[in-house]
C-alpha cells in the first residue's frame, strides 16, 4: 500500500514539474507537447489511483484524459495554429525568470496552506492536495503571464488537470464528479472551438489582444 502512495505521489510530482516546464517554455509547439505529456502523466496517475483504490470506473477518467487532453486537443490546436498562422513564439508578459520565481512562491504557499491541515487527515490529503493545488495555481499563473490565446487555453487545461488530480485523489468521491469534469471539459472544448472559429471569422489572429480593441463602454 505504501508504494502505491509513493507512485501516485511521484506522478503528481512529475505533473508539477510539467507545469513548471509549461511556464518555462516559450515556443508554442513545445508548449503543446509538454501539455500533452502532462495530460498523459495525469492519465497514468488517475489509472494508478483506479487500480489502488479498486475503483475501476476511474479508468474512464484516465482514458478520457489520455485521449482527449493527451492526443486530440494538442493535435487540434497544432493544426489550428498552422492554419491560422499564429506566430509561433509566445509573447510573455513577465520574463521567464520572474515567472518561475512566482511559480516557486505559489508552490510553497500551497504547501504552507496544506501543512496546516491536521495530520490526522489521510496522508494523500496532505501531499497530494499540496501538489494539486500547486498545479492549479501554476495553471492560473500561466494564463495571466501569456498573451496568446492558445497558451491561455493550455494554461486553463493544465489547471483542469490539477483539479482532476485532486478529485481522483480524494478517496471515494462519487463518479458524478469525474463525469461532470469530463462533461465540462467537453463543453469547454466545444465552446472554445466555436469561439476560436468565430474569432477566426472576425479577426486575423487568435491573439486575445486583438479582441480587446472592441472596448466595453467607449465614450
Amino acid at each position, binding site marked *: 500500500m505504501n508504494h502505491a502512495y509513493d507512485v501516485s505521489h511521484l506522478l503528481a510530482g512529475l505533473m508539477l514539474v510539467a507545469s513548471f516546464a509549461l511556464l518555462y517554455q516559450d515556443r508554442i509547439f513545445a508548449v503543446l507537447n509538454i501539455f500533452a505529456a502532462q495530460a498523459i502523466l495525469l492519465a497514468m496517475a488517475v489509472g494508478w489511483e483506479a487500480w489502488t483504490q479498486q475503483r475501476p470506473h476511474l479508468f474512464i477518467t484516465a482514458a478520457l484524459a489520455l485521449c482527449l487532453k493527451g492526443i486530440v486537443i494538442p493535435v487540434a490546436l497544432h493544426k489550428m495554429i498552422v492554419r491560422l498562422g499564429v506566430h509561433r513564439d509566445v509573447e510573455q508578459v513577465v520574463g521567464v525568470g520572474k515567472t518561475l520565481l512566482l511559480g516557486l512562491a505559489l508552490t510553497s504557499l500551497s504547501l504552507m*496552506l*496544506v501543512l*496546516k*491541515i*491536521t495530520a*490526522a*487527515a*489521510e496522508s494523500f*490529503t496532505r501531499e497530494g*492536495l499540496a501538489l*494539486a*493545488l500547486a498545479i*492549479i495555481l501554476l495553471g*492560473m499563473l500561466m*494564463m495571466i503571464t501569456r498573451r496568446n490565446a492558445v497558451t*491561455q487555453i493550455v494554461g*486553463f487545461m493544465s*489547471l*483542469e488537470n*490539477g*483539479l482532476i488530480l*485532486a*478529485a481522483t485523489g*480524494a*478517496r*471515494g*468521491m*462519487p463518479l*458524478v*464528479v469525474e463525469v*461532470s*469534469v469530463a*462533461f*465540462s471539459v467537453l*463543453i*469547454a472544448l466545444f*465552446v472554445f472551438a*466555436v*469561439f476560436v472559429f*468565430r*474569432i477566426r471569422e*472576425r479577426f486575423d489572429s487568435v491573439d*486575445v489582444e486583438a*479582441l*480587446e480593441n*472592441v472596448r*466595453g*463602454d*467607449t*465614450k
Partner: protein
Amino acid sequence: MMTSVALVIGIPFVSATALVLVPGYRASAAGNVLAMFATFISGVSLLFVDAGASSYFIVDDMNILFIILNTLVGFTASVFSASYIGHEIETGKLTPLFVRFYHAMFLGMMGSMNLALTANNIGLLWVGLEIATLITVVMVGIYRTPSAIEAAWKYFILGSVGISLAFFGTILIYLAGQKALGEGASAMTWSLLQAAAPQLDASLLNLAFIFLLIGYGTKVGLAPLHAWLPDAHAEGPTPISAVLSGLLLNVALYALLRFKMIVSAHPEAIDPGPVMIVMGLISLIFAAFMLYQRRDIKRLFAYSSIEHMGLITFAFGMGGPLANFAGLLHMAMHSLTKSAIFFAVGHVAQAKDTQRIAGIRGLSVTHPGLAIGLAAGVFAISGLPPFGVFMSEFLILTTTFARAPWLAVLPAFGLLVAFGALLWRLQDLLFGEPTEPAHKVRASSVPLMIHLGLVLIAGIYLPPILVGWFERAAEMLK
C-alpha cells in the same frame, strides 16, 4: 416532494430538447412560454408538499422561495422574450434558426438553475450552476457582433476559471467531510454536512471557503471578480440580461450561502462574516462610482446589479436575524426589480434604436407609460418608497448602525453615491427635448407591470407566509 422537484427540473430540460426539433420560431417561442408556465406551476406546487431532503435533492425554507422566484421570473422573462426576440428578427439582428436555439437554451438555462437550487448534493449544485453559466455564455454571444463575442469570450474565460476554483472548493469540502461522514455520496450531501459541521476538519473548511468564495463569487459578480458582468449584460439580448441579473447572480449567491452555513456552523473555522463584509463593501462602493461614467444604459444597470450584490453580501456578512432577513428580502426584491428594469430598458432600446444614454431623451414626452415604468424601477432599486427595496435597505442600515455605527456609514455612502448617478441618468432619459426616433413599443409590458406590482405590494405589505420563510432561513443563516 420528489415529483414536483422532478417536474421543476425536468419540464425545462425535456421541452428544451423538444424545442430544438420544433421548426418555426413562433412555435418555439410559444413552447417556451408554455413550458415556463408549467414550470412555474410546479414550482408553486412545492408550497403544498412538505419540505424534506433526499440524498440528491432538498426542499427547505432556504430554497423554496428562490425556486418559486426563479420559475416566476423565468416565466415572465419567457413572455417578454417571445415578443422581444420577434422584434429582433424583424430588425434582422437574429435569424429564425438562432431564435429557435435561443428558446431552447433559455429553457436549458432555467432547468439547470432549478437543478442548482434544488440540489442537496454539492456536486450537483456545482453542475447545475456550470451548465447555466455555459449556456448563458453562448446566449451572450448570440448576436455575433465583435463586441458581443468579446463579451462572451470574457465571460467564458472568467467563468471557467470560476468554475474550476469552485470545483476545487467542492473537493475540499468533500475531503473535509470524508472523515466524519465516511467515503461516498454522503460526504457530499449538504444536509448531512450541515448536520455534522462541527466535526469537520476546520482548516480544510477554511481553504474550501476561500475557493468557493472566489469561485462562486465570480458568478455573483463581486468586485474585483466582476469584470465579465457589465459586458455580458450589455451585449446579450435584453431578456438574458434580465435573467442574468435577476436570477443567475442570486443562484450563485445562494450556493455561497449554503456553504457559509456549513462553515459558520463550525466553531474553529474562519468567520465568513468579515470577509463577506469587506468584499461586499468593495463591490458596493466600486460599482457606485463606476455608475457615473456609463454611457450605455444596460451597462449602467449591470453595474447597479454589482452594487446591490455587494450590499446583499454585506448584509449576510453582518449576520444576525434582522440583517439576514433584510439580505434575503433584498435578494428577492432586487431580482424582481432589476429584471423589471431590464424589461423596461429593452422597450426603451427598441423604441429608440439605441442603448446609448446620450441618444435617449425626453421619454416622459414620447413614451409616458414607459417613462413611468422606468422611473418606478429606478426609484425602486434606489430604495425609495413605496417599493420593497426600501424596507430591506431600511433594515440593513438601521440594524448596522445600531450594532456598529461607524461601519454603517460605508454602505450608506455607497448607496448615496449610486443614487446620485442613477438619478442623474434617469433625469437625462426622461426629461428634455425628445430625441428621434420614437417608435411605438412592441414588446409586451405585462411582465414589467407584474414585477413592479409585486415589488410595490412587498413594500407595503409582506404576507406572513413569506415572512415565515425569511425568518426561518435567516435563522438557518445565523
